[in-house]
């Protein structure tokens, strides 16, 4: 790590030296009233600098890349992620070729064809064949890259498979809230932003029977390994963006317009802990659309479980209704019996009566808005 700083320091020292030596030249030229040929001052030095930069640049880019590589994200933990990674490095490999050629030619020509007294440049205004060649070659390379990219893109954005595990993730200032379809029916209930309040953070609509067994979690999301996971993405206040770096997943969360992204995670958290040798490794969900003061810390833990652990975890979760039995008041009369199943027995009777009025009152006022 200190090697880098030392290197910077070295570069600066060299450059400072160069500046000072050049400045002496400057002072000299200020004193001179009229130099014989202004236009070529410093030509040798500048020409040589191009070669220095060419060699120095090649060395430092290679070295810094090799150094930086160990800090890149580990191999993607999702199937599509490895595909886009391969495509990324393939494209980067292809693009390195023109990067090297162009920069080499620019710097080399600048040095090679620097001004020489008595020399005259070649009058060479056009060559249609040459121009045609360097129009067509980039076009073909582009077509190749576009085609591979387009194939990947269409597969990634295709409809999610039917057996996908559906999980809702809602962004708000400044955290994420995960909602699961439930311990029993595994279907997400309806929602309505007007039903949101301090407890019902994602606006679960309890007039939909699918919502009775829904449960939410504001700090971590569990997903099963090895099968498709479909994230249904929402935002409550401003734009957010779900970013799971290790899964190569990113999709904006837009208020008023639900979005989605599906992927197949195939490495559990435990696998990754073993692979990275870091017993504290955790997948993380971040926000990548600026959303205000807490944008930089909208973190949610993501835990990839094997199927059995995941099932067990789901079955152990407390449904929203059991945590807040007073919301039973919002369940329509004809569905109350069904809903009672998810309310803890001892809370059910008193809660249904006593807090019904207050919750109902709050509900009425909020739905009036």
């Amino acid at each position: 790590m200190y090697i880098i700083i030392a290197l910077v320091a070295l570069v600066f020292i060299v450059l400072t030296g160069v500046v000072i030596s050049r400045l002496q030249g400057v002072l000299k030229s200020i004193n001179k009233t009229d130099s014989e040929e202004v236009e070529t001052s410093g030509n040798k030095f500048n020409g040589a600098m191009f070669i220095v930069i060419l060699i120095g640049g090649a060395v430092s880019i290679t070295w810094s890349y090799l150094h930086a590589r160990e800090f890149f994200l580990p191999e993607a933990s999702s199937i599509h992620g490895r595909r886009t990674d391969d495509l990324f490095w393939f494209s980067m490999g292809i693009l390195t070729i023109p990067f090297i050629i162009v920069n080499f030619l620019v710097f080399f020509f600048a040095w090679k064809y620097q001004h020489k007294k008595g020399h005259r440049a070649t009058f060479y205004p056009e060559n249609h064949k040459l121009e045609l060649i360097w129009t067509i070659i980039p076009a073909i390379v582009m077509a190749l890259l576009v085609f591979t990219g387009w194939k990947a893109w269409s597969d990634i954005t295709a409809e999610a498979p039917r057996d996908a595990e559906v999980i809702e993730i809602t962004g708000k200032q400044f955290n994420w809230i995960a909602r699961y379809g439930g311990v029993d029916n595994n279907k997400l209930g309806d929602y309505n932003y007007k039903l949101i309040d301090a407890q019902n953070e994602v606006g679960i609509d309890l007039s939909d029977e699918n919502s009775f067994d829904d449960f939410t979690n504001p700090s971590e999301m569990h997903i099963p390994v090895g099968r498709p996971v479909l994230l249904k993405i929402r935002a409550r206040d401003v734009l957010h963006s779900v970013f799971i770096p290790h899964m190569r997943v990113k999709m904006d969360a837009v208020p008023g317009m639900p979005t989605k992204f599906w992927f197949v995670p195939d490495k559990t958290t435990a696998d990754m802990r073993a692979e990275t040798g870091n017993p504290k490794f955790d997948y993380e969900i971040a926000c990548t659309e600026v959303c205000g003061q807490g944008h930089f810390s909208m973190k949610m833990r993501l835990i990839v479980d094997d199927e059995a652990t995941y099932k067990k975890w789901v079955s152990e979760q407390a449904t929203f209704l059991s945590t807040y039995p007073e919301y039973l008041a919002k369940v329509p009369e004809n569905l109350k019996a069904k809903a009672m199943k998810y309310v803890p027995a001892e809370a059910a009777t008193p809660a249904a009566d006593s807090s019904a009025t207050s919750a109902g009152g709050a509900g009425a006022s909020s739905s009036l808005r």
Partner: protein
Amino acid sequence: MSAIEGLETAHHHADEHAHHHEAQSFWQKYIFCEDHKVIAKQYLITGILWAVIGITMSVIFRIQLGLPDSNLSWLKPILGGWISDAGKLDPNFYLALVTMHGTIMVFFVLTAGLSGTFSNFLIPLQIGARDMASGFMNMLSYWFFFLASVIMFASLFLQQGPAAGGWVIYPPLSALPQAHPGSGMGMTLWLASMAFFIVSQLLGGINYITTVINLRTRGMSFDRLPLTIWSFLITAVLGLISFPVLLSSVLLLIFDRHFGTSFYLSDIYINGEALPNVGGSPILFQHLFWFLGHPEVYIVLLPALGITSEVIATNSRKPIFGYRAMIASMLGIAFLAFIVWAHHMFVTGMNPFLGSVFMFLTLIIAVPSAVKGFNYITTLWKGNIVFTPGMLFSIGLVSLFVSGGLTGIILGNSALDIQLHDTYFVVAHFHLVMGAASAFGLFAGVYHWFPKMFGRMMNTSLGQVHFWLTFIGIYLVFIPMHYVGIAGFPRRYYQFTSYDFTHKFMDMNMFISVAAIFTFLAQFIFLWNFFYSIFKGRRAPQNPWRSNTLEWTAPVIPGHGNWEGEIPAVYRWSYDYSKPGAKEDFIPQNIPYSQTPESNFPHENELIATEKAIESQNFNDQFKTHH
């Protein structure tokens, strides 16, 4: 002067006392001036002041990112309450800095400062016109820009801070004052300022287009225009089509903010309250914004490419390679610029099919861009290159343009954009290809045309030192930034301590910040050179770079009307450098073929017959009104 005065009795308009009575008041001469050269300098100086502010902001947030533990108490005298007692930068103000840096650099420096300066200065001088088509509109254009500047500058001093939702000001964040302090008065002023800025751009753009089409001198056909003028013309057309769309998106946002409409708002619950707005779409704003936002990239870049073409040809002492291909590629880029905007929106939830369409269109842009790159290289090939500071910056531009442009091919690929969107990879990409490249175009232009602007030379050695420090500095900042982006670091993060996956690259970020500060300091060489040379520089000869274009046939310090006596006629293109057989290695555009029989090609000898016809035309001189 005599020729002008003799004709003057014939016409009666405002120009009259400008050159009739020698004494112009200070206000008319330097402040509310209608002369394109003064307006250009006003744009340049304002742009430079904004650049100092904008880059200073970036240095402050780079210190925050690269040296997170540093105590910033020493900034308290400037930033006051934005620095906490513990010497930490306020996170809200960090976002404001990022936002204002983007806004200032994109609009006030690289749009107004670059295109405003050089379109104004060079269009009349290079096409052979007395002034812009409408001097008054031109003056208005600057003063609307000035008004926009004042409003934006004032917003920096608000207690709640200036706008802070990113320079793209995506609603609902920018629409809801309760979402962020920067979305209050700061955003109101931002929107007002941008509305005036757009008016300024439209007034300027109409003028540029009209002037290029109508006021070209005798013989200056479109295929003899220097590439600078082509680039300014195309830029102005781009601006004229795209800026009104930004105005509409800004107006709708103002309606949403102040008049309770729901263009961009729907289903929002914030601060314990569900808002009544339904049916709007934040995505609509993004479409409208990027319909300007993407052409804006080329509004910033094309003038820089035009300037580079001219400077590279002059200083390679060679004709620009593929003049027609250069024009065609600029037209191609300009056309494509309007149909690629949604590549900024691949992961907004937009229909994936639309994503594929925009991916195809986006990657086509690489082809005309590649043609430009190769043409520059071939122009250097077998040249006789003089490393004036302007030339160095132009060569640097080609390198930055290509290096930065190549990563655009990655980002334009929607499948790859999923991971890289809104990471530092994007930041590195656009800073190289449009930020640094355009800034290099600006520097190249200033160094090259300084003698024409101020009648004095800038110091060459200082210019060369400035170039090397800046060029190396830019690469030291932005190459490592790609690594940070590949590692997944998101943009606009106040600090990287909240996540495990960003818990690395501390040294890399420190390196970037140190390099940024170093590059920033190098700019003071330029500032000193610039302001010192205005007053104390060596007197410039008439044609210091031995260039072909018309501005160098005007007096060293052109007066009102640019040429004394007749406007020169044009007989050839502007790239007759090192023509075989010619006495000198350049033949200016106003030299007829009949005077250069030794170097004419056969088809050019045929053109000698048309010279009489060209000379007899006279309809474009505003000082002569005989129709």
